[in-house]
């Protein structure tokens, strides 16, 4: 190939990049960077002219956009399923019948994970009071959260179809109880892109020492392009795996090696004319920037003492408090979706390590102050208007004492038929209460909110039409909210 031909080719390549300028505006916001351009040619989707105008993946699948109230999500998931009766769903009648045998009609047709025979009712050991101007009933275990509860809409009538952890978490976060679906964070970054070119668009952080039961499938990209995968950031060790240079290599050393890589890759691009090579050059540059930006954003010691104290954050700890503060730092820098998983809420009562008397107060203490600090901090910075904060679990817990194997510790079994979740900010109606359960806190008597309805409402607030936001895979138009009809955006939750 002669020199002129090379020039022509380079011109073509540059032209392709230049033409993709508006696309790159998306990419600048996504971890994908230029990778998504390459992706567009790899995805094998029909590139119908005009139809892909809004798809950050450039795969030709239209993204139905609407005016948005919110830009970001911080999802605080209490892995294991917090007991609604001990935190939000006040049931004096249940307390009255504490330790009485469970009425037969509550057991009819029920499947339990662990309860066998006829269990006894379990009242809450905790005091409840009306909190905030909205007068929300809350237990004494969450005094700090009570201080910000007026910002939130509390849904007492969440309902799921699953009563084992992994399927229930998969359902909550991928819209399907089986493996293979795409995570909500992947859907949302796929639909909206990210706003920071040096950070991933979908970040996951874990506290409590254990991954959620659903595992990494909960932040898997599933059938969506894999650049929308959640990236796990850690507060101990490398904040993102392999982000640190090898021992004996400084930033200057890395810069020089990178320059050599780029130089040889430019020769390769010239000789072979593959746009993917140019993409790789830019991805290596992005990696280099991430090596600085990720440790920077993940360093809580950069926050003033007063803020760290407010959250209860301590540099170097793998704590929920640190993760809450980091969530704010990430959202502030344009990360689209931050998912926190906190382990230890599976209060069966098989021992002191998982009961509602010892373990539950401990867990509440871990999360209560950081949650309140997060909501207040976001509000002070004007970020709460555009950030939805969600708190919840994957299912509820029974109003009966589990007493597995005759355990004398108090605890509750898995319960899919009702649980409490709250959301604040980003167009959520502050101070609202949605739904109600019966007097024993066992089933919903008013306005059930299925998981898919809640997901649809989140998408709606983010400006994505939940019904037509879909992706073709295996012969179906896949949606976060499933393919079945009957899902609703819940107006009760909207400001």
């Amino acid at each position: 190939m002669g020199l002129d031909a090379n020039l022509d080719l380079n011109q073509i390549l540059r032209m392709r990049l230049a033409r993709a300028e508006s696309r790159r505006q998306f990419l600048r916001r996504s971890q994908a960077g230029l990778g998504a351009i390459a992706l567009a040619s790899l995805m094998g989707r029909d590139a119908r002219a005009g139809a892909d105008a809004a798809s950050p993946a450039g795969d030709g699948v239209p993204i139905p956009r609407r005016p948005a109230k919110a830009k970001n999500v911080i999802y605080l998931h209490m892995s294991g399923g917090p007991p609604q009766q001990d935190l939000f769903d006040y049931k004096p009648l249940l307390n009255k019948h504490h330790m009485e045998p469970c009425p037969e009609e509550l057991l009819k047709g029920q499947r339990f994970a662990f309860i066998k025979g006829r269990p006894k009712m379990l009242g809450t050991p905790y005091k409840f009071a009306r909190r905030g101007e909205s007068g929300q009933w809350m237990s004494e275990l969450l005094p700090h959260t009570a201080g910000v509860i007026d910002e939130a809409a509390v849904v007492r009538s969440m309902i799921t179809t699953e009563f084992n952890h992994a399927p229930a978490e998969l359902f909550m976060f991928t819209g399907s109880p089986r493996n293979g679906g795409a995570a909500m964070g992947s859907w949302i970054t796929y639909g909206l892109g990210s706003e920071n070119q040096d950070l991933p668009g979908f970040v996951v952080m874990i506290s409590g020492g254990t991954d959620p039961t659903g595992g990494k499938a909960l932040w898997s990209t599933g059938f969506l392009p894999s650049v929308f995968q959640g990236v796990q950031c850690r507060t101990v060790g490398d904040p993102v795996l392999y982000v640190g240079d090898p021992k004996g290599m400084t930033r200057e050393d890395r810069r020089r090696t990178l320059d050599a890589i780029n130089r040889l890759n430019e020769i390769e691009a010239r000789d072979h004319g593959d746009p993917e090579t140019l993409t790789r050059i830019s991805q290596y540059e992005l990696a280099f920037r991430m090596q600085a930006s990720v440790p920077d954003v993940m360093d809580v010691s950069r926050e003033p003492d007063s803020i760290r104290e407010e959250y209860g954050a301590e540099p170097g700890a793998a704590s929920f408090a640190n993760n809450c503060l980091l969530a704010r730092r990430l959202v502030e820098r344009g990360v689209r979706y931050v998912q926190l998983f906190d382990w230890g809420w599976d209060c069966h009562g098989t021992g002191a390590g998982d009961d509602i008397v010892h373990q539950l107060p401990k867990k509440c203490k871990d999360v209560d102050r950081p949650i309140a600090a997060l909501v207040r901090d976001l509000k002070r910075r004007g970020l709460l208007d555009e950030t939805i904060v969600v708190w919840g679990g994957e299912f509820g817990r029974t109003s009966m004492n589990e007493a597995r194997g005759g355990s004398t510790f108090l605890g509750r079994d898995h319960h899919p038929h009702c649980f409490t979740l709250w959301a604040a900010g980003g167009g959520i109606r502050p101070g609202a209460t949605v739904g109600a359960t019966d007097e024993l806190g066992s089933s919903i008597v008013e306005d059930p909110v299925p998981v898919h309805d809640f997901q649809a409402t989140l998408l709606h607030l983010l400006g994505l039409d939940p019904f037509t936001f879909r992706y073709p895979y295996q012969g179906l138009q896949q949606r976060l909210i499933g393919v079945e009809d009957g899902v609703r955006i819940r107006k009760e939750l909207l400001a």
Partner: protein
Amino acid sequence: MHRHAAWFGTAALALATAARADDRVDYNRDVRPILAKNCFACHGPDEGDRKADLRLDVRDEAVKATDDRDPALAPGDPEASVALERIAEEDDTLRMPPRKAGPRLADAEVETLRRWIAQGAEYAEHWALVPPQPPPTPAVSDPSWPRSALDAFILARLDREGMKPSPEADRATLLRRLSLDLRGLPPTLNEVRAFAEDPAPDAYEKAVDRYLADPAFGERWARPWLDLARYADSAGYGSDPLRTIWGYRDWLIDALNTNLPYDRFTVEQIAGDLLPNPTDRQRAATAFHRNTMTNTEGGTDDEEFRVAAIKDRVDVTFQAWMGLTMGCAKCHSHKYDPLSHEEYYGAFAVFNQTADSDLPDESPVMPWITPEVADRQRQLDARLGELKAQAGAIVGPPAPALRDEIAKAEKAKADVPTLPIMVELPPEKRRVTRVLLKGNFLDPGPEVGPMLPKALHPAPEGRPVDRLTLANWLVDRKNPLTARVAANRTWAILFGAGIVETEEDFGTQGEPPSHPELLDRLAVDFMDSGWDVKAMIRRMATSATYRQSARSTPEALEKDPKNRLLSHAPRVRLDAETVRDQALAFAGLLGRKVGGPSVFPVQPDGLWQAAFNGQRTWTTSRGIDRYRRGLYTFWRRTVPYPSMAAFDAPSREICAVKRVRTNTPLQALVTLNDPVYVEAAQGLARRIVREAGSSPEDRARYGLEVCLGRPPRAEEVAPLVALHAAQLERYRGDPAAASAIATDPLGPLPEGMDPADLAAWTAVANVLLNLDAVLTRG
């Protein structure tokens, strides 16, 4: 936004125009995609969701007038066709499809439908359900180019677009491509040099045969099948306990290396246990479907997850062999393809009679005796013989020490690796299968017997419809899909993308083939050859199409940016396992033992600490097992090996037909900083210093030749020499840093090597392992 959309649309537009060169509207090519996408969800095969009692997927129904309405389609008369009227309706609240269901049809689509109705609204069966017929070889512009019939199909298509194929790639590039594609390993320097000098006219063909015969062939080609088989070393779900099933991987590698014909490969995996007098190998093959997940989380209902596993087996069988999305029919009849809800549970009934039932012990299992285990057994037998002879020689009871030793040897002998397999229930324990309403195992409907989808060919007669019948039905010559799907998958591995790009979906929702006649020719040839897999690979790898240069021209980039027409060879980023294997091979570290248990190479500390349950410690393997090929890496579903996950390896929780190839900064971080790759860079640096001449130029040239598989040019050598000089100066002044970068984690330098020099070469080697040309097969 508008400009780039137009840009991305160019290619498809060009191809579409060509496809419509003749005026006749073709149902399969032009019409079905429009109806399938926009109409069939409510007016298709699924009786449950059908609206207005109207079907548009069956001509007799669509053209029928009823008392209530005129025909939806009036053949020859677009104006009288109610469907077209509703589709073209200007009022957005009245148009079809309804706003909630989807966007308005594009004008061009409406026009296509109008012309189709005007031409008589003729339907045709979906191409993939019509058995492949051997098509005639087309005439081409340059009869000297094709080396085989398959090249003629490629060239004929390029001719139609006014495009030209590319010249043959240079020898070095060809050998590297071939070695990576057939063995998943780079060619050795000796192979490269020998091949460059081989004057034989069939030097290339001989190289193909050599690599097909290399044991590494089976390892490389096992990888895509392991993705399909959702093979993993753990049971999945929340607890994700470890599972011993690597014997299946051994079986698979061996089946590929011995070139087990694909029909037998199929029958043995689905129903090896039902063959007359099955061998241990045939029973072991059935572990294929024991790769389903088992849920051992506390409080789960075993029947719920047994049913989930059976559904998975149905879905994966139809997916892997026939490219059909049968899973869609588990809740309701398929909305697009002729697969009913009842038929789904008919296939479910076929798989519903095995003894496994979501139990933590994975029963039933069989012993898996590798040559090493057999050796050990023989030694133990000999030892036991001796001990027992000693015991026999003693009058009275043997001494406690001897008794203990016998017990210990017997226990050791009983401790052999196992393999979960399929075992059919005895007749008296057969399960009754019912249709599960909406797929819910708690909501059983009418009873259903074992059956196969009616829209396809009938089952072979003479035996009940069981797994063996189903397997024989899959490889029946009348099956329109099995050979096509296998040929397409093989093609995709060698050419970067399938002829049917949606490898996972040959149904009406999938993409039509880019070269339908070629696909049929490959499928028919494959069956005619006796399902000879290596012969099929050989046919493709020796073609002129395969041997083209990967260099793209501006014209090709403009006209066909996805290179669907193969005017040049594809450049493809190596898959996760190969990225690893290649780096270790360059470093001289790669362990070449074939088969055996999974291994634990270096990964970041603490990843398993966070596991919900079960084993939490990852004990890094020692010795050769630290450096085995990627496919032997222990695969825990909920905690995937992170560097391979970054390079798009799936979790294997479900069947993955193809891996999407991404290009992300996280991948750059792996090959730049992961200690595995730092160690490989150190090994490569030592090799360069040991094996190359003494000048920095010689050494840089040598490193490039090892990694690129070709002699480098001066402009490529210069930046590496400059980097070496800069790093040498820097590391001379910082011995601690030099020592770290040159030895951590590989270990102390051999006697006589200069730490600063090796540190500088490690930086150069780190560069080499990150070059686009090295990470890409060109």
